[in-house]
């Protein structure tokens, strides 16, 4: 797998709302918690110990896959899922950027009303 290191604005061109939406679910967050240790898991392994069916877990994995948070890799007949931190890092960077823009705008507001 190729690892691309992109910087600055190039790193925040991925559509963002779907990434946030993918993260807004307890089941998917628990899947991420398991996968983010780095080891790839099969659907059976991810279903084990969960109250959800294999179909339900698969559905959630597909949502994560659609925004690039997990990738499936084939190992023999089985699909394994592995975590990719990039979309979440980009999303965080984007929030930091929005936050900075507000800091600057509010500083301008402050001098505007206090003058």
């Amino acid at each position, binding site marked *: 797998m190729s690892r691309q290191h992109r910087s600055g*604005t190039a790193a*925040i*061109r991925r*559509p*963002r*709302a*779907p990434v*946030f*939406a993918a*993260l*807004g679910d307890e089941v998917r967050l628990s899947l991420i918690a398991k996968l983010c240790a780095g080891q790839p898991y099969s659907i059976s392994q991810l279903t084990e110990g969960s109250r959800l069916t294999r179909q339900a877990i698969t559905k959630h994995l597909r949502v994560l896959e659609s925004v690039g948070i997990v990738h499936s890799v084939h190992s023999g007949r089985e699909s394994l899922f592995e975590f990719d931190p990039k979309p*979440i890092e980009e*999303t*965080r960077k984007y*929030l930091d950027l*929005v*936050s900075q823009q*507000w*800091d600057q*705008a*509010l500083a*301008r*507001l*402050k*001098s*505007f*009303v*206090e003058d």
Partner: protein
Amino acid sequence: MNDRIEKRIALKAPVSRVWRALTDYREFGEWFRVRLEGPFAPGQVSRGYITHPGYEHVKWEAVIQKMDPERLFSFTWSHPKSLDKATYSPDYSQEPTTLVEFSLEKTASGTLLVLTESGFDKLPSDRRLEAFRRNDGGWTQQMKNIETYVAPAS
């Protein structure tokens, strides 16, 4: 992940002054750095262009939600995918539609302004904008009704 931004800032100016700086479209445009077409009104779309040097190509579009005098001003908007001139696209359809709220509180030294921006997981759609518009009208009427209902008979 926390998908909400919150900022609190103490301003040495009366609430009425801060309210005007937020809700008069010319004053808002001054500090926010946007040239707006006209006044803000709840349920109405506000359009303009950013005036921040280097970002004059960036379109501003928001739907004004609430204007509760000297207490709450809110709007929804979408962030462009990229602000860079080379990659900027006016298509915001895959970008979050967030709710921006300014709430004001009188303090001994002036005004406490709390800004929140939330809803980064929401996709914009014309239907949603339409719904917001309808909702707001409904709520405005609703709040008026409640106000009339709870107001002491004089």
